[in-house]
């Protein structure tokens, strides 16, 4: 097992990487959609979304649809750059 020292630890995690990979292909996605697609629990997903949001990788908008709270996530340009770097480093490791 090689050491992934150069890989962004924030992205090198199963769920956070899945969230970012999902958001990279869409304009925006709701919390429920990300939960369905990743199969994560609401609690865990909420924690990981907070971490990504605090790092500035994603923007989170909270609103309401009718009476239900609605959380919409979007990737930021900082997040996009971090994701691209992560993939580049990953390819570098695989190519080694």
């Amino acid at each position, binding site marked *: 097992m090689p050491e992934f020292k150069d890989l962004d630890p924030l992205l090198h995690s199963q769920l956070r990487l899945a969230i970012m990979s999902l958001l*990279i292909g869409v304009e925006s*996605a709701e919390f429920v959609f990300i939960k369905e697609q990743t199969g994560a629990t609401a609690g865990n997903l909420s*924690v990981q979304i907070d971490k990504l949001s605090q790092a500035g990788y994603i923007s989170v908008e909270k609103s309401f649809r009718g009476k239900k709270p609605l959380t919409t996530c979007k990737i930021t340009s900082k997040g996009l750059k971090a994701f691209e770097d992560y993939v580049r480093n990953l390819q570098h490791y695989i190519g080694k």
Partner: protein
Amino acid sequence: MENESKNLSAEESLKIIHEMIDVAKFGLHDNSFYFLLWGWVVFLANIGHYYLMVFTQYPAPQAVWLIALPASLISVIYGYRNRKSSSVKTYTGSIIDYTWLAFLICLIIIIVFSSRFSYNINPVIMLVTGMATFITGIGIRFKPLIIGGILFWACSIISLILPFEYQYIMGAISVIVGYLIPGYMLRNRSKQLKTRHQNA
């Protein structure tokens, strides 16, 4: 999905990335309902129109196109319901939606001014239908729809060459190759992707 980073290998990382990108690329754009609904409606209307015009003395064969009215209503209801439950927005999805809106505007103009086209509107409609189908195919990266779009254009050219009444036969053929065959293939692919994703 667990949030364990210790044992995540490079290959596993790539697999996650691919899987999630596939969801955004393929899983979200199942427009097959519209292709199948309109494929059958336009097919039946074309065949009906041809039959009434050639084999009967019925004075208004174009009346068969009234079946487009309930089909429009079904489309609107289906679209509204889907929008309500839709929890993701994609750039591709927006472009495809606007392409079909533009198509609808063209279609209305063509139908309203059909007398100006000497009622030779079928080949013109096939041209714009081909364009919208082609763009949708490119957007969702689905070859049968891209080919379907090209075949609409081919059917349009053939219609322009053949005598007038054959336009309706060509119209029926064009929706089989341009809407129905790619529509059923699209539906199958979406089902397969859904199953694969659920089992992953």
